[in-house]
């Protein structure tokens, strides 16, 4: 056996490593730029084709609008306000309903999910009723809420709550059920009381499930609020859409749709930030490692 001296060519190897690293970094940067560039290109091509088709009447802008028409509509809403008051007020009203519905529904869903997940008897008894309640098309409840709670905010919040509750409940329940047996036994033997097991084992391990449902259910809350406004309201983005619809104003419908999409994206971004903060203990998903 002979040992090979590592000092040979060590310096040369070090410089070649630095060069290789720089190359790899440059490649990564290039790829990132390529992805962004392609995304922008697709957007420009899509909007350009839409605009051109509308200009040359290949599609009828009366029904399908056009990017410039939508932009003019949004701009006039921003500068002159809508028929039912300033645009900001409409956004604010809808967001408020959505948030209230989202928070009430999510908290209710989490609490109910944990209680039923921890108690086998309650779970067996109530599971059938939850299945029944879940199979009712919930948007129809909007009419019931408008009759019962009136045209104000309460009916929209109620609809958003039922939209959110079942999704979050189902996930919280599943998350609690999937909590690792060994981990629970470990906590028990380390000296945890049933309450401590719930707070320091069950809830953290159900957290990924719950957070996943929060992503989806914010969209549902928004649908609940907008549909509620659709069915009857004095303010809000949903009313703006139904007014535009009544006036055959395609620009207005599309403009309101885009504003709603932006609202949803902004909130989605905030939830993702919150999620990353809460589950910072989780390993990066495989496809993001090294990216």
């Amino acid at each position, binding site marked *: 056996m002979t040992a090979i001296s590592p000092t040979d060519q060590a310096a040369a190897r070090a410089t070649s490593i630095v060069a290789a690293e720089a190359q790899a970094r440059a490649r990564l940067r290039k790829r990132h730029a390529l992805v962004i560039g392609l995304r922008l290109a697709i957007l420009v091509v899509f909007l350009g084709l839409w605009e051109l088709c509308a200009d040359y009447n290949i599609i009828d802008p009366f029904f399908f609008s056009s990017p410039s028409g939508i932009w003019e509509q949004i701009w006039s809403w921003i500068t002159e306000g809508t028929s039912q008051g300033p645009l900001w007020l409409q956004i604010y009203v809808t967001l408020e309903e959505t948030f209230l519905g989202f928070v009430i529904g999510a908290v209710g869903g989490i609490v109910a999910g944990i209680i039923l997940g921890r108690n086998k008897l309650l779970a067996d008894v109530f599971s059938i009723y939850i299945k029944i309640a879940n199979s009712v098309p919930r948007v129809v409840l909007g009419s019931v809420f408008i009759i019962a709670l009136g045209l104000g905010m309460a009916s929209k919040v109620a609809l958003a709550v039922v939209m959110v509750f079942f999704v979050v409940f189902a996930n919280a329940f599943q998350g609690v059920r999937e909590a*690792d047996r*060994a*981990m629970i*036994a*470990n*906590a*028990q*033997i*380390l*000296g*945890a*009381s049933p309450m*401590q097991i719930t707070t*320091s*084992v069950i809830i*953290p*391990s159900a*957290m990924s499930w719950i957070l996943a449902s929060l992503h989806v259910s914010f969209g549902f809350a928004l649908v609940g609020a907008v549909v509620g406004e659709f069915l009857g309201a004095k303010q809000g983005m949903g009313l703006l859409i139904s007014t535009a619809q009544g006036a055959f104003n395609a620009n207005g419908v599309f403009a309101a749709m885009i504003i709603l999409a932006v609202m949803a994206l902004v909130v989605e971004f905030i939830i993702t930030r919150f999620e990353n903060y809460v*589950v910072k*203990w*989780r*390993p990066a998903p495989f496809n993001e490692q090294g990216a």
Partner: protein
Amino acid sequence: MQLQTMAAEKLSPAAPPADAAIAIDDVTLRFVTPDGHMMTAIRDFTMTVARGEFACVVGPTGCGKSTTLNLVTGLLRPTTGNVRVMGNPVTDISRDIGFVFQADALFPWRSVIDNVAAGPLFRGTPKKEAYDKARDWIGRVGLSRFEKHYPHQLSGGMRKRAALAQTFINQPKILLMDEPFSALDMQTRTAMQDELLGLWSGLKSSVVFVTHDLEEAVALADKVYVLTAGPGTVKSVYRIDLPRPRVMADIRYDPKFIEIAKVIWSDLREEVQLGQSRGLQTGH
């Protein structure tokens, strides 16, 4: 008797003395499976662990090795017979017990130090004291540089070290281990066995260590229980008179060790074969 010169003295199972740390006396455990059949997990099982003694339990897969541990924790109740820990009948999970699991039972959302401090915190120790203690135990298992790391950032061996610290911080008088090192590679396992013996000699707990690895059992134990293929009962008990302190990396080349392992293996082999063929028949 020839066996005695080989340092593996075969003992006759006797009724446990009153001062034993763990006494499982003629226990049978049956349970009804979810599809309504009666299963016997272990039958007529008698086992004694004296204070400060290191006992290993070996046996074929599915013979009820882990069941014996759950009887001691109180997570399972015997159908007949009785179980005593430190002289008292088992009613609830005792504060004297520590348990190291086969699977990773660290809490993945807690950093190493939060994991190790969990025991004292659950038991109501003030926060500062719990963390001081945790820091001390993390030092003892050599993880001081990794206090703030989360379990997924550690290797399998480091996670086991953290799990040992998490268990030992409660200074258990009874230490139960369920194939704790079976998922580790050979080198890491040897290192962890040394680590365990080091921690154990400082604490002098009474240990029940379940394993399917006979060499691990002989290397670690004062006493080895060989179980029959399920429903498990004690086939034979051996006293291992290898001197302590033992060094795991060397002991497996010690002629005395090899001699003992051979004797016990000849006993265990037929049970393993029985367990295997039965497993093939029933599909478990």
